[in-house]
């Protein structure tokens, strides 16, 4: 059931590229939908979109058509399964990487309008800390930061948290650790990140969970299907189902 507060909005972000933002976004959406939630995926990588690729969608309307061509935003949403809608973005349009203030307002208004029928909105951002990444991160109430177990992605996750906290007063961060060997490893990685954020930013992110390295993930990506659908019993899928439950508990 939807409550009067509207959908729960989560921005999925990482700083570093290649840590699994889009994969997590797509699979989390399906996992939430498996719990009878209605989910809207927004591809926030406006210059180099990927959500459609992971889902094998043939996209004919994107956020760009809505912003530039006056296309009805609801028409641009592709219903990919009973509970999951996707607002795709365009690829190969560098000028969309940095939206000006009016366009950000316009995008904010149209997202607010189309998200009404949904319980959850998952916003997949681009990598980096460019203006659009920061904007999407301030648009949602929750920031889900995904990192790998390596120092580079962890440092980037920290840098992004620091910018969002210092410059935009964000303080509701949730951490997912991808590509881990075990839950114990995920917790350790989270704790090392949390120790640094607590010490230097006086901020404690919430641990959401870890996703194990799992060959079923790549196999599913190659067949352009969510791994939670293609291999629901495999470790990665089971971890994402658990994440979905935690996210439902959050709201």
């Amino acid at each position: 059931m939807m409550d009067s507060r509207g959908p729960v909005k989560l921005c999925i972000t990482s700083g570093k590229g290649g840590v699994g933002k889009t994969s997590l976004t797509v699979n989390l959406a399906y996992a939430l939908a498996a719990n009878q939630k209605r989910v809207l995926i927004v591809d926030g990588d406006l210059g180099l979109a990927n959500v459609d690729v992971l889902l094998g969608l043939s996209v004919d309307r994107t956020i760009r058509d809505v912003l530039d061509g006056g296309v009805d935003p609801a028409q641009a949403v592709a219903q990919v399964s009973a509970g999951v809608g996707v607002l795709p973005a365009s690829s190969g349009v560098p000028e969309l990487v940095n939206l000006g203030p009016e366009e950000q307002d316009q995008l904010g208004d149209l997202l607010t309008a189309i998200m009404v029928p949904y319980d959850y909105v998952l916003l997949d951002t681009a990598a980096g800390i460019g203006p659009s990444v920061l904007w999407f991160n301030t648009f949602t109430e929750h920031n889900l930061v995904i990192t790998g177990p390596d120092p580079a992605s962890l440092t980037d996750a920290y840098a992004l948290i620091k910018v969002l906290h210092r410059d935009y007063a964000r303080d509701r961060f949730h951490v997912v650790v991808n590509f881990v060997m075990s839950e114990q490893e995920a917790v350790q990685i989270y704790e090392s990140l949390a120790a640094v954020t607590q010490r230097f930013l006086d901020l404690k992110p919430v641990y959401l969970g870890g996703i194990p390295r799992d060959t079923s993930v790549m196999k599913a990506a190659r067949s352009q299907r969510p791994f939670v659908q293609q291999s629901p019993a495999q470790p990665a899928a089971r971890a994402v189902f658990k994440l979905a439950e935690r996210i439902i508990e959050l709201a």
Partner: protein
Amino acid sequence: MTKPADPTLDCPIGQVECSLLQEIRGLRTEVEQLARLSQTDPLTGLFNFRYLIDALHREMERTRRTGLTTGLIMIDLDHFKYVNDIRGHQVGNRALQWCAARWLEVVRKIDVLCRFGGEEFTVILPATRLAQAVRVAERLREKLEISPLPLNPGELPLTASFGVDVFRANEELSPETFVERTDGFLLAAKNQGRNRVCYEESKVLRPATEVTPDERIAFFATRWPRE
């Protein structure tokens, strides 16, 4: 802003000698000249204070849109009262013109050099980070230091003090407050003995959000589970 006079302005009914049209052309040229005058300092030919505030409004808005910082340099000639009092106002005026001309040789094409008033000057540096703005200020300072005003006979050494700051997209600041804040660094340059460039050094060395060495060490001190 006015549009440039349209040289192709033709009489709609095809009259070759139309006095009305001639008058309109004349008025347009006059409006253009007045617009130019209203934003120019007559002594130095630089932009004036009015233009400075307009241009600063525009550049700060650009910063809000693009995230690229706007740099500002506030300049004050050192001991200028002495020049006026001892050498007379004519030499004083020539000194102001001299500085303007020397600095125009070294500012970048995109920079906006203005006469703020009296012996104060301002440079707006569009889309410029603090470290780069400081480099420009240092260049202006050096240029003046090595370019004494030629007098007949002799020459008059000139120096100036500089305050530098930048406006960042997430700041709530008016152009006037930005000028005031930068003026604070100019004051510091004066107090530290003049002929120097002052700015917030910690801002150049480390932006507030940059990951510090201590933070990095904290990460690398982590015992990685796989080791």
